[in-house]
């Protein structure tokens, strides 16, 4: 009887969520007829304004720099506050399922961290809006003509988000058990629905500027419905990528919080609590991180499909070097994540049987990283060309193209998953009878998948034509996914009834906690880097092919300048995050009343 009540309350909230969101989103209208356009109405539609350089307002410093920093900080914070409720709801639900209070307490603590961040997100959003209107009024005029009343819906959604967020957080202890807990979970679900909707709406503005749809390209006039405008070719790839990446990013940041609290813990219980929190955060971050390269690949594939030119500008033209920097960042992320997992194995005695594998995983990771970081086309002087014996190095040149890099990336992901899997197996002694058979299958899957990745990369990459070369990367991705999925499935089945060996939470090196700092720092800078690529593929266009950028900043800056801007944004964000953590800690602190004060 109780279960039926729980589920029905849950279901009621879901229906309420859908009922509230769908009409506001215009989904019902969107699902209706497509727009009818006739020739006269196109002529009547307002044409885009074409500002000259002199028309752009100037405040004495580079307008682009101002908007860049404000936008980046807004995005960092927004990614964080959208991500946290996503994994908090899951952890809260785990707490209900396992009846382990630790999960619920941790979920509650994560939410506390994100509350301060929420208001800061809104503040930076407002500042960004002001900067955009002040410095790019013509662009904003056009975008508002295109997106029309949808921007008001975005604003209204924020009222909803705030209300639900405050209700969700402040009702935590009041709705702790039984039916009320289910209602609380539903609030969490609703919060995530609204948050995701906000993400999707804002993504449409960015993807419209890259690949406009629903407008007449020649004049910029609006010809489609708001749904056609939103659903451009890049919208869903960006939606998927940002949704997943947010989770990875959020996990990494709360991991840093846990690491910091671990380092400053004084009691054994505190150390154990924060060590466990760090582990869980890292788990979330890595789990979400693994599918990201595939989402990113889809995004690039759609960019190429939309405009070969845009795709080549990104990966084969002036922005190509950024992808080498990306390799450095992801190498850092993978090394840090793996190092943390290996360090964590010291918590469990059962990990000793797997220690011998670690050095091989490390070799693969480092080799993969080196291959990935090898560039293909170098900008060489004449003497350098003569020394090199050509425009490409004979041995290293072939390592610079995508097939080699795809091999490297896929192997790095497979081996990271191996670290993951070994860690999860460390504290268990399997009791099922078919253990040997299952392990044989698992090992064989790893071996064949690795061989397949290498075969696909080498054969199709170097010995067939372009289309097969590109298509073979999907084969590689599939192989990696097979390893991950089969690993999770086989382990879950194998762990049934397994003997759990004790994990000594808190028994982990201080060094390992620094891995948890390296992770969010690298993630943050990487986010800035990739966001910069996404934004600058438009080259000298505000809205690609529709509205030219005639501002003084309408050129792609040098990679060094871009890097410096990203560093400024990252350091600023670091300081903001420290502030957020401090506030969260502060709310727990109570000053002890000094003796002698107060009522005498």
């Amino acid at each position: 009887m109780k279960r039926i009540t729980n589920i029905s309350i849950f279901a009621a909230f879901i229906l309420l969520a859908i009922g509230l969101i769908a009409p506001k989103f215009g989904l019902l209208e969107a699902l209706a007829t497509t727009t009818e356009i006739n020739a006269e109405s196109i002529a009547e539609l307002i044409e885009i304004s074409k500002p000259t350089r002199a028309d752009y307002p100037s405040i004495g410093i580079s307008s682009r720099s101002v908007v860049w920093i404000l936008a980046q900080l807004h995005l960092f914070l927004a990614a964080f506050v959208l991500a946290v409720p996503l994994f908090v709801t899951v952890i809260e639900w785990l707490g209900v399922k396992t009846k382990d209070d630790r999960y619920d307490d941790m979920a509650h603590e994560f939410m506390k961290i994100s509350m301060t961040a929420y208001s800061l997100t809104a503040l930076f959003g407002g500042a960004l809006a002001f900067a955009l209107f002040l410095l790019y009024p013509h662009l904003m005029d056009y975008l508002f003509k295109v997106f029309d009343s949808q921007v008001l819906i975005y604003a209204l959604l924020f009222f909803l988000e705030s209300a639900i967020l405050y209700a969700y957080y402040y009702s935590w202890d009041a709705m702790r058990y039984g039916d009320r807990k289910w209602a609380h979970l539903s609030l969490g679900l609703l919060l995530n629905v609204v948050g995701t909707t906000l993400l999707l709406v804002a993504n449409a503005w960015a993807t419209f500027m890259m690949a406009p749809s629903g407008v007449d390209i020649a004049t910029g006039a609006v010809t489609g419905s708001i749904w056609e405008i939103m659903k451009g070719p890049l919208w869903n790839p960006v939606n998927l990528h940002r949704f997943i990446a947010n989770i990875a990013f959020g996990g990494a940041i709360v991991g840093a919080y846990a690491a910091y609290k671990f380092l400053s813990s004084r009691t054994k219980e505190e150390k154990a609590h924060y060590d466990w929190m760090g582990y869980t955060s890292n788990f979330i971050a890595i789990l979400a991180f693994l599918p990201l390269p595939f989402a990113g690949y889809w995004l690039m594939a759609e960019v190429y499909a939309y405009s070969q030119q845009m795709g080549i500008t990104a990966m084969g033209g002036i922005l190509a070097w950024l992808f080498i920097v990306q390799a450095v960042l992801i190498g850092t992320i993978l090394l840090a994540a793996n190092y943390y997992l290996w360090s964590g194995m010291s918590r469990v005695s059962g990990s000793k049987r797997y220690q011998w594998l670690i050095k091989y995983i490390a070799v693969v990771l480092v080799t993969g990283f080196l291959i990935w970081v090898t560039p293909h086309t170098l900008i060489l002087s004449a003497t350098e060309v003569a020394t090199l014996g050509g425009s490409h190095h004979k041995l290293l040149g072939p390592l610079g193209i995508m097939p080699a890099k795809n091999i490297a990336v896929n192997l790095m992901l497979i081996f990271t998953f191996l670290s993951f899997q070994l860690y999860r197996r460390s504290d268990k002694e399997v009791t099922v009878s078919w253990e040997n058979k299952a392990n044989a299958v698992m090992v064989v899957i790893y071996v064949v998948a690795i061989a397949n990745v290498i075969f696909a990369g080498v054969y199709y990459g170097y010995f067939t034509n372009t289309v097969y070369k590109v298509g073979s990367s999907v084969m590689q991705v599939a192989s990696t996914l097979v390893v991950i999925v089969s690993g999770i499935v086989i382990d879950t089945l194998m762990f049934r009834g397994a003997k759990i060996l004790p994990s000594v939470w808190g028994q982990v090196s201080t060094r390992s906690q620094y891995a948890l700092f390296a992770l969010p720092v690298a993630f943050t800078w990487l986010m800035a880097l990739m966001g910069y690529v996404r934004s600058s593929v438009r080259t000298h266009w505000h809205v690609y092919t529709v509205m030219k950028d005639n501002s003084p900043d309408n050129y792609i800056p040098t990679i060094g300048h871009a890097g410096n801007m990203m560093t400024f944004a990252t350091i600023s964000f670091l300081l903001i995050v420290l502030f957020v953590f401090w506030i969260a800690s502060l709310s727990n602190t109570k000053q002890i009343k000094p003796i002698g004060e107060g009522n005498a």
Partner: protein
Amino acid sequence: MPNIVRVLGFSLTIVLFFTLVANILPQVEGEAPVDKKVDLSALTMDTFIDMGEDIFKGKGTCTLCHNNMGRAPDILAFDAVATANDRLSNSKYKGNAVDPQSYFLESMKDTSMFVVEGFGQKGSNDTISPMPAANKPPIGLSNIEMDAVIAFLQSKDGNDVTVTLPTGDTSQLQQKTEEPALPVLAKTAEEAVTKFACTACHSVAGSKSLIGPDLSDIGTRLSKSEILESIVYPSAVIAKGFPPIMPANVADKISPIELRMLVDYLSNQKGE
């Protein structure tokens, strides 16, 4: 040392490492296209060709793909005019150009009229080109700019330049290129015959091509309705000894006025 200092120091070190990486790589600044004023009255063919080369390597973004890295045919490496002639007589060619100059122009605007083997869009079996139209955004070359590029392509291998220098009072290089609202109709039958590339295969209006039947005396062999049929339904009746290769869609591009002109003209071709 307090934890906060250690943590901040560590984080800053990592950030600075990334910054260092970004700063030691080759620093290249992108260039946005700038309006250039060109004095057309002082323009020489050499300057025009140089302009074309600048556009090919700059604003036109041609070298982004047309290079030796295998993404598109490496135009700078082969004889462009000779290649154009080959393409025109290739059976896969679907366009309306009649000589290298018109071919080059067409290949910038209607990029799928001929797709080089292996370079088509994936899944299109080399029928759709991934090349964007150069006269549309984001490239947006004007007619003058495209002519300059053609001049460059013709001259770079030592071939004759057939493009004429632009004249007129437009002094700004960046023009708004608009597709004409109505197609430009041929004014005479001879113009039509050239426009629709009949001369590529048939001996007529000065051409001596032997690929298809000789049309210089077609008026003695076919009636007006038979001539009309052979233009609109080329595969209905195949002349003896000739391969059935006349494009089936030639008539799609011919307006009724031009078709009438052609039929009248051809029925009057009764040999010399």
